[in-house]
């Protein structure tokens, strides 16, 4: 039973929310919650902020320059390993979005096809470790795979035909886009080829706020959940809100991406609330990171997240 918070206090509170990247389809639910007034009804004035790079949100959050940040499960674990006192208070996207994408007749149809190929990566160490795990599972020699760090230029690298595949692009963003543009992409999702599943996007808060600003977090997450429910019920309106706030986004493309992403905005288990973290999944993924020497300290995955503030949880 969910208890109603007292109606929005007279004074709206401002929440600086640093996104993980430029606004895109992954943030459709956030913009829907803003546009349909869910946040303001909850007494929140949410301001999405674009970061300078995908690792900046956690840094700004840790420095107190933002109230909440969108980040990635592996990033949060890395930051905690380095001593950051940050906690995921909700999962924005339940599943990995990271994938291996290849094109046309040179497509890599299954992990085994990577042997002897050139793979462009975003240069993020834990993603490089995915390749190792994938190679092991597929039984191929990792040293035969040439890795090239292409930074943010994953798709251009693919289109330039200088690499056979890229690891790090999202199946719901670049994958959908390539599909729409008839580039005939072949997509291998991380959790389908041996990498333990994880929450690709999470909502992160400071530990101290978890203790002292619980009600605010709860109101935020409830409004966000409503935004996503609205999105599920009527994707068109949500996409409109996203594009209204970001006129340089293409409506058709965003609609297609939102449609593709819809299933992973919510837990597979219908009984679980929006934003739910699966304890086992987090544990398994943390173990995998430790096994791959990405983390230096023994780390409790339990304390990296909390479901306490999700609608219907905790209290």
């Amino acid at each position, binding site marked *: 039973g969910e208890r109603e918070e007292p109606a929005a206090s007279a004074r709206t509170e401002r929440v600086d929310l640093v996104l993980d990247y430029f606004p895109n389809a992954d943030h459709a639910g956030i913009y829907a919650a803003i546009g349909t007034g869910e946040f303001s009804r909850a007494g929140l004035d949410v301001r999405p902020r674009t970061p300078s790079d995908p690792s900046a949100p956690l840094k700004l959050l840790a420095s107190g320059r933002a109230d909440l940040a969108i980040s990635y499960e592996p990033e949060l674990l890395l930051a905690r390993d380095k001593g950051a006192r940050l906690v995921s208070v909700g999962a924005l996207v339940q599943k990995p979005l990271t994938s291996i994408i290849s094109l046309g007749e040179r497509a890599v149809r299954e992990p085994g096809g990577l042997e002897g190929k050139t793979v462009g990566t975003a240069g993020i160490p834990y993603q490089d470790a995915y390749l190792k795990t994938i190679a092991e599972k597929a039984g191929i020699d990792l040293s035969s795979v040439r890795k090239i760090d292409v930074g943010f230029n994953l798709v251009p690298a693919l289109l330039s035909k200088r690499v056979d595949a890229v690891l790090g692009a999202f199946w719901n963003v670049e994958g959908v886009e390539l599909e729409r543009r008839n580039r005939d992409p072949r997509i291998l999702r991380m959790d389908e080829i041996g990498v333990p599943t994880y929450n690709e996007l999470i909502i992160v808060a400071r530990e101290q706020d978890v203790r002292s600003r619980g009600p605010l977090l709860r109101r935020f997450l409830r409004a966000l959940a409503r935004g996503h429910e609205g999105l599920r019920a009527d994707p068109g309106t949500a996409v409109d809100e996203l594009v209204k706030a970001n006129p*340089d986004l293409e409506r058709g493309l965003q609609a297609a991406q939102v449609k593709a992403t819809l299933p992973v905005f919510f837990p597979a288990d219908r009984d679980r609330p929006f934003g739910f973290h699966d304890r086992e999944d987090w544990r398994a993924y943390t173990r995998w990171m430790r096994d791959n020497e990405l983390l230096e300290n023994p780390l409790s995955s339990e304390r990296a997240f909390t479901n306490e503030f999700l609608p219907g949880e905790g209290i």
Partner: protein
Amino acid sequence: MATLTMISLLIVAGLIGAWELYTHVGGVDEFLLPAPSAVAEALVEDRGLLWENFVVTAGEIGLGIGVAVALALACAVALHFSADLRRALYPLLVGSQTIPIPIVAPLLVAWLGFGLAPKLAIVALVCFFPIVVPTIDALARVDADLRKLMRSFGASRWQTFRLVEAPAALPGLFTGAKLSVAFATFAAILAEQSGSENGLGHLVAQAIPQFETARAYAAVLILSAFAVALFGLLALAERRLAPWHRPGGVLAVGERRLPVDPHR
């Protein structure tokens, strides 16, 4: 004059034609290199979007250059006056120029927030140095005999600066300002790509992953034109304010003489 403009237009037309041809037969994906025709189309279709964002970026560039010129002048003068300062700070200045944007961008946000300020800071940081160096060099290259002369007239260090050194270094300042105009555009795009809600740099950053490469090129084209216009304006201002350094050039206007090849 007319024929020159023709030549220059012909060259540009030739380049554009070659580019168009290459996009069709060169085997490069259109999302890597759009055809000029596609860019032109984007220019027309997205004109509203481009204009709105251009206004934002142009503001950042203008303000950024203003800040950079003011700081650079103050700094150049200070370093010119004090050899101690010069020795102590010049290396730091040079070093500061090498700081990569991805490192400073989050810091600037932490200090200055998410608004215009961090963008201004980045533009000013990039533009500052190319003004300081030519200005300091120009100040240092002032004829030492003129300094002696002023000293014999009882001029103070500051008077010598104001009456002799500053005007003599004006061409150096203009060289620096012209450089910084070109760099400001570059810097504004970088700054907007490291976190922003609007501006042409933001547009470029958003356009590329959306495969709207033609739009990104259109944005760059607009900024290039803007930079060229600013550069041209500065060159004009230079000719009006500091014409004396080309006695064979501008001042000979109207006087028939054999060509002595000064730049106009």
